[in-house]
């Protein structure tokens, strides 16, 4: 059986988004599945991030 070139990523927070981006860059088709209406997860709620206290947007 030939190998599939697609991967499912479950959860669209910072980890899920990064995984999906890297997999796409590596040559795979990605299904990014998120139950909410937008991706970003908790990180999108953060004002600034430590240790440098910048926004990382």
């Amino acid at each position, binding site marked *: 059986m*030939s*190998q*599939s*070139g*697609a*991967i*499912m*990523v*479950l*959860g*669209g*927070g*910072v*980890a*899920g*988004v*990064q*995984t999906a981006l*890297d*997999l*796409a*860059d*590596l*040559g*795979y*088709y990605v*299904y990014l599945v998120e139950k*909410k*209406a*937008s*991706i*970003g*997860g*908790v*990180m*999108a*709620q*953060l*004002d*600034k*991030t*430590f*240790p*440098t*206290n910048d926004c*990382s*947007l």
Partner: protein
Amino acid sequence: MYCPKVVVDTYNERLDITSATHIDYAQAIPASYYIDAKECLRLNYETCNLCAQTCTAKAIDFSQKPKKLKLDVGAVVLTPGFGKVDDSVLEKFGYGKYPDVVTSYEFERLTCASGPTEGHVVRLSDHREPKKIAFLQCVGSRDETCGNGYCSTVCCMYALKEASVAKEHDPDLDVTIFFMDVRTQGKGFDEARKRAVEKYGINVVRARVPRVDEIDGRLGLTWVTDDGKSHSGIFDMVVLSVGLDAPEDAQKIADIAKIELNNYEFCQTTPGQPLATSRDGIYVAGAFQGPKDIPESVTQASGVAAMASELLAEGRNTRTVTLTYPDEDTALEAEEPRIGVFVCHCGVNIAGTVDVKAVRDYAGTLPNVVLYEDTLYSCSQDALKTIAGKIKENRLNRVVIAACSPRTHEPLFQETLRSVGLNPALIEMANIRDQCAWVHAQEPEAATEKSKDLVRMAAAKARLLEPLEQPTVDVTPSALVIGGGASGMGAALSIAEQGYKCVLVEKSDKLGGNLARLTWTMDGQDAAKVLKDLTSRVKKNKNIEVLLETEVEAISGYVGNFSTTVSREGKTEIINHGVVVLATGGKEYKPNTYLYGENNRVLTQLELEQKLKRGKSFLKGANNIVMIQCVGSRGDDMSHCSKLCCTQAVKNALKLKEAKPDATVYILYRDIRTFGFYEDLYREARKQGVQFIRYTLDRKPEVLKAGRGIKVRVYDSLIGEDIDIPANLLVLSTGIAPGENEALAKIIKAPLTSDGFFLEAHAKLRPVEVAVDGVYLCGLAHGPKSLEECMAQAKAAAAKAVIPLAKGRVAVAPIVSRVNQDTCIGCGICESLCPFKAIEIVKVGKKRKAQTITASCKGCGICASHCPTLAISMGGFTDDAIMAQIHAFAGDNCGEEA
């Protein structure tokens, strides 16, 4: 917008309201409205339908039903994040009862400029600014009564951050943080903690506050410090530093995916394979694998990408879709400029301050502008489609977008240009949001004037924009991994299993690095097994060539085409490769204090492990064993925290108790940093009777000779005096020092941190990349960390390293310099000034001429501004374009206005 149903805004932690039809937050992706099905009147009560009727785009269709999709995938990655601690846990601290007790999530929204109070911290009870705030740590963490025995890892640091931000808003604010232990063990965190505490004067109290009471509309706290004394204080506001729980639906995910969870309902993994679940082909990353911060989540995310890529190496590029663009309309591009100006409202972000319509109409008066429009959200998918349509319809050949920052959004609009057959260089953005509307909110007229000026300058530049080639260079499809420890082997294996050749160079005579000195992994398993597994797989893999006793002498080239000189047995060899992974490791710190090296009863933790491995006979008569933490770390020699010594000490204390149950083990510590699930080990050690005694920097323990033996003197704050412990064995937790990184850093031109570790390109978003393209980083070379983290990082570095190899070509930004060979006089000034070695002098015929090495050039323009004959021009930033912007800035004042 017409939705009549008011609902609480969960993005703002219920501190604000929105409607059932809403966009989660201003930068949400996708930034389209959606209907909250739980709240919608139409879906729940079959009334209303207002939105569907008013939507001019007819985008609302209530007849849609949920659909089941079947996806054919070769691997699954679980990144469900973390859940929230149950409110019942928070109620103990008065949450829900007293309005001024808030969670750290709520406080985050209060300090945020886009939050419900626009960044003003106020009490929710009376909307007045608090004067005294207390942060309570470990709410829902390190607390078996709520079932969360683990440490949530991130709360100490985020509390310090939130406290700093609050102090920045109001310097007179009095902030106290109540810690059990201050756990700021991440890279650069301890330094950040020190800065925050010193700069902002944040009070640090090591005590657990059991409850919160209301006293005359304020909040009363009582706590007991290490010395046994009881204290109390009154605060205006209490912030609960809420821990990270397992995701709410963890059990459901586990059932569906058929994977195992640990006893806290997080995903079960091992230190050697931290990203693998119990089922093949299903991987895990982020907080579901265990509580962790952003850099580690991002690292693991890249790491699982590598895992999936290893598994599905044959399937690579079989399902991807290649974007195709229409051919460039070069004839249109060459015509007289036809500029379209799009002025963005960005909702109220711009339009709330700047008179967008006035700016739009002003744009219409500028030369060569043939179309001027305003858009609500230019970056939204439908707006981009509209813009694309308008470009075609009006045959535009230059575009000005007056909106936000080109740093974040230019690529998006460049895509739009490409999609309609225009060169992506033919766009210019005017930043009227980040650098205008947002920062001049109180001066709408001045902001509107500034916006007009910025648009005029952008249009002036746009007139002179020229199409730029999109150069790419071929990639040598192999990697060089420097360092043969666990991280280096992990990275090499992953790269090899993803299908690429890899050379692994190690300067010593064997593979293994620090792992070879370790006896047990953090979960008490045999470290030698992990090592053996790694080394045998490395040796077996046909894609890996191992070079022992080999040192790197020089690296030249750039991403895709590096050429490295190594020396081996006195001979030099050249290796060509496309990418580099730095895995040079670190080393155990060797102290010259506490009689180390003088008395054979004094060992380091690693030395203890090695002794224990050989047998327990040396423990005969060792009734008192003392461990001292932070020897070297967090001090004068090394300012950083070595992150793993606390857990290592606790692990070894347990091994000692196992080998000799009647021995008393003392651990003298400053903060016990057994973060994450390692907290279980700490609790177990306390249960087993290991004695933990906290010391402070001003009263460090002393080690004294006592006859043939030694004794350790330490101040016991509970009894308020020094106690002497006769120690049969003294074990020093000496931490991790950086390896000899300076030479390599110079060769690669990669920066080091002040502690001597390699500096990543971005602390959070690019944790395994180095500022030099094509160079990646993992393991102790990056900073102290456990084997588990090293392995995840090795995978992550491998994923990043394979990206250019898998693509086969790397794109080069077209903003590079170009030398006009006719006017160049070959003086070489540019060559000597270029910070990236990206311009060189070559012989053209008989003359010396400068030539840009396109792949290395970063477009900084030093060469252009220093060229005596003005022979160098910069793509997208030509002299003429910048001069045009200057003239446009001057407007009527300048005689040379075009």
